[in-house]
């Protein structure tokens, strides 16, 4: 897949919740094909303590409008800078990067898309793609509290929505893997993106039920294009770059 380095313009920047930013970026040119699970890397200028580009999963694509959306959680100076962008600002972006989730699965399959925190970002794009293939996805999204569960309306419009919070302020209390929807149930395919302990618990659940499972990793990256070998995951095939061999891996490839 050809990679592009292009300048986008910020069309919109909303705050779905404190600490999160939903940015819509528009290009003058039509967008190349992109698949759910792929990511972009955004250049961050004018920040004292950061230096490298920031990788973000593609949250949503609106090809007709030559736009894509990123859901950004502010974790440091770099993401704060990006979250503070105003409509009209330009953004230097390399895209699309990495490999996507498997979407070539049988219509009417029962699929689970589960994530937490900013890890929910690629699941909307994925859910939409699956929906187009005749699959109604089940989203299971988790957060510390209701304030961490964002974009619920967007997910609800695409599939069935379940959620958990650690404090019980929304949905069922606990972690995603404790949700009642997982009881006595086997999904045909499970996709997950979020904090590593959460993904490890989902992978363990998938192994118990014998469901194929893909996880999206976010190891710290420098180049994003397979040149620096910094973001490696210790897989069954040895150290592999998350940016080019992933970020999506089948759990059978992983040692966890």
């Amino acid at each position, binding site marked *: 897949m050809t990679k592009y380095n292009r300048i986008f313009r910020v069309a919109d920047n909303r705050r779905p919740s404190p600490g999160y930013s939903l940015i819509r970026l528009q290009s003058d040119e039509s967008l190349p094909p992109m698949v759910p699970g792929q990511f972009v890397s955004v250049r961050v200028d004018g920040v004292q303590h950061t230096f*490298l580009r920031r990788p973000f999963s593609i949250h949503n694509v609106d090809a007709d409008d030559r736009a894509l959306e990123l859901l950004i959680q502010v974790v440091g100076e770099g993401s704060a800078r990006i979250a503070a962008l105003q409509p009209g600002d330009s953004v230097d972006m390399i895209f699309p990067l990495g490999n996507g989730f498997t979407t070539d699965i049988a219509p009417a399959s029962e699929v689970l898309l589960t994530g937490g925190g900013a890890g929910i970002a690629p699941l909307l794009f994925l859910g939409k793609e699956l929906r187009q293939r005749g699959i109604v996805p089940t989203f299971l999204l988790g957060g510390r509290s209701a304030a961490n569960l964002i974009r619920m309306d967007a997910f609800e419009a695409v599939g069935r929505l379940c959620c958990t919070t650690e404090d019980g302020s929304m949905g069922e209390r606990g972690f995603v893997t404790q949700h009642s929807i997982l009881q006595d149930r086997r999904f045909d395919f499970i996709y997950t993106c979020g904090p590593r302990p959460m993904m490890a618990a989902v992978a363990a659940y998938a192994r118990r039920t014998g469901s194929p499972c893909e996880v999206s990793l976010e*190891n710290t*990256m420098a180049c*994003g294009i397979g040149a620096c070998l910094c*973001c490696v995951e210790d897989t069954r095939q040895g150290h592999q770059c998350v940016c080019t061999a992933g970020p999506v891996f089948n759990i059978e490839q992983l040692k966890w």
Partner: protein
Amino acid sequence: MVDLTVKIGALTLKNPVMTASGTFGYGPEYADFFDVAQLGGIIVKGTTADAREGNPYPRMAETPSGMLNAVGLQNKGVDWFCSHIYPSIKDIDTNIIVNVSGSTVEKYVECAAKIAALDAVPAIELNISCPNVKEGGMAFGVTAKGAFEVVEAVRKVYPKTLIVKLSPNVTDIASIARAVEYAGADAVSLINTVLGMAVDAERQRPVLSTVTGGLSGPCIKPIALRMVWQTAKAVRIPVIGMGGIASAADAVEFMLAGATAVEIGTANFIDPAVSAKVITGLSDYAGRHGIAQICELTGALRV
């Protein structure tokens, strides 16, 4: 029309801009962003006699104006390079230079000898300065005696252009450079990364799995410039300068300090087409300053 060509040993570079080992993969990784054949040379990923898995993750820490890495020479070994990678890059119309590393003199020699057999590789860059591999690399590069021994041994099996990449983690880089020149090197390149460290205050743990790593990026440029300046005065062979170069102005600074050519490293991660911009910028600079041949810049610093 400015003449951008420069000579390094038996090599003629179409311009002084090369990409640094470990930051540019094997070249094709960047082909979507610009025509990599525009480069004066591509120095491919560090290659060793045997395959190496490298260090455990995490291998990278971002720092103000730079980054630390502790990749540890992950590569599939020289035989894999010759059989699987070389065929796909040998026809790129620029100088393909292989960075050769090792843990013993014998391993350096074994690797260099195999690369010598590749027609489309006109030079190697002997890495005696990797800070991330415990048993070797930098161990040779931090003493004049160690540097001399490994270069002398490789020189015997490697007849083409031999560049030696020097470590900045030494007291007197000029003495190491002189030892390497005496051992038969055709050029030296410097600097490799500066040994550094990052700490996660919240977790009270090191960021890197290896605790220490190699610092690169604009933050090391002043150190690199100083070492290029010192080295260029100490040796007669060409000096290839690197360390934080991210613009044509940076490249000019290194050439003025004594570099014949430059390598661009970490900047490739921020702007994958930066090298092409540096080439254009060098041409513009020369035009603006009435310079007919870019090589006139080398060592032209007015002190």
